């Protein structure tokens, strides 16, 4: 049995086993999440997303190092990294290779890295990534860096989970129409053009800048409109135009050499301060916890439905759908 107290007091083996319990949904999982939840809410969840090969792992490696070094006069923050890679839809296996770029971090006991396979989830994270963040938060990590699956245009789950989202672009990834499409660029709190030593980097940054200028004013960096409406409804007492908005910075970074990293760490800290001072931190938390609860309810309802399912009836109806005798939408009423 895994001891939640041991996790609280920094036992890394207990933490690691607890993560497995949660990932595999073993009987221990519920107890551990419940025991650690009261201690959560302190960690800064930072998402790093972007296309495959854009340099997310290398960037995460540099960010973790910089966080550990930057505050020399106070205690350096404890850093956890969750690195998600895709599960093969055919074999169910996965090759998790993000640690290759994080070898620099070995030996630092203030850093904990865990690789995760997506296990069929499609939003760029795994089903249990949010629960991982809860455990790591409860275990006392100050910053949790979450690296998504190499993402394209639709893998935007990270926007819900993380307080701060960094979208990484590599130069030459597309024209300016790509930059104004909906999706991943919209969720960025900070935009990074990585591999800035390449000649096209300036052009990419320019295209991104045009995209940002086209997005609505106020809280710059689109996709925040929903958050803003929430903020106005629930917490905000002053008109939003009197609050200092967040200007999504575009940073040129060469992660492999570490150039531009210190500025990026400042941006991340600045974004946290902005979230806290504008009350958006609380709004985001409320929104996320509500969505987490919804997801749990959906899972549970599905489980219960499957347990009580008349398999024979189900197969018969499935056959009728296949023969075009009934539509799936009709069958729904017969099954629920």
């Amino acid at each position: 049995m895994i001891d939640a107290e041991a996790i609280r007091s920094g036992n890394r083996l207990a933490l690691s086993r607890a993560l497995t319990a949660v990932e595999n949904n073993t009987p221990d999982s519920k107890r551990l999440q419940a025991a650690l939840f009261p201690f959560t809410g302190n960690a800064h969840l930072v998402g790093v997303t972007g296309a495959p090969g854009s340099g997310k792992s290398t960037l995460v490696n540099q960010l973790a190092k910089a966080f550990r070094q930057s505050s020399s006069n106070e205690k350096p923050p404890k850093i956890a990294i969750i690195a998600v890679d895709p599960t093969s839809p055919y074999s169910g296996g996965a090759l998790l290779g993000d640690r290759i770029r994080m070898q620099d971090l070995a030996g630092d006991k203030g850093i904990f890295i865990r690789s995760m396979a997506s296990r069929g989830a499609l939003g760029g994270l795994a089903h249990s990534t949010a629960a991982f963040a809860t455990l790591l938060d409860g275990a006392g990590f100050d910053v949790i860096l979450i690296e998504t699956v190499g993402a394209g245009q639709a893998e935007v789950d990270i926007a819900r989970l993380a307080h701060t989202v960094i979208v990484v672009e590599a130069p030459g990834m597309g024209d300016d129409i790509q930059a104004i499409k909906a999706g991943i660029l919209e969720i960025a709190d900070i935009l990074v053009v990585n591999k800035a030593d390449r000649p096209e980097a300036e052009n990419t940054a320019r295209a991104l800048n045009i995209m940002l200028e086209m997005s609505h004013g106020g809280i710059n960096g689109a996709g925040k409109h929903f958050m803003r409406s929430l903020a106005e409804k629930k917490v905000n007492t002053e008109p939003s135009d009197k609050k200092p908005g967040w200007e999504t910075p575009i940073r040129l970074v060469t992660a492999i050499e570490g150039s531009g990293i210190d500025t990026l760490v400042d941006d991340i800290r600045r974004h946290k301060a902005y979230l806290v001072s504008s009350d958006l931190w609380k709004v985001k938390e409320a929104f996320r916890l509500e969505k987490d609860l919804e997801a749990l309810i959906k899972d549970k309802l599905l489980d219960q439905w499957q347990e009580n399912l008349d398999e024979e009836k189900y197969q018969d109806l499935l056959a009728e759908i296949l023969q075009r005798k009934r539509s799936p939408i009709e069958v729904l009423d017969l099954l629920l």
Partner: protein
Amino acid sequence: MTNKKIRVLIAKPGLDGHDRGAKVIARALRDAGMEVIYTGLRQTPDMIAEAALQEDVDVVGLSILSGAHNALVPAVIDKLTQIGLDDVKVFVGGIIPEDDIPNLEEKGVYAVYGPGTDTQRVAAEIKTAVNPKSE
């Protein structure tokens, strides 16, 4: 509903830079439905043991072509034991002389694979090592 996947760490301790074999095995185990964590080249025993702990793997596969297996393998196993991972199974792949195999097995290695090994055999033996009842 529990949803257990076998997790394997493939690591290259020591100084040789040839990781083709490690990659072939990693890919084959992925295709066998396992979650494979590959850590890259030139790992110290400390780094390997710590990665095994953080990733909570069931199995560690060590790929060694440098000839230093008699020193490296026991060092990794000692480290694993020291940090509480004595239940983790270890196999070795690479260029290992016949005469050295009994010694490695005595140290706790459950299998040693040379060049040309059928990768499906490696996968099957991992499943047996992790869950002896299931075959």
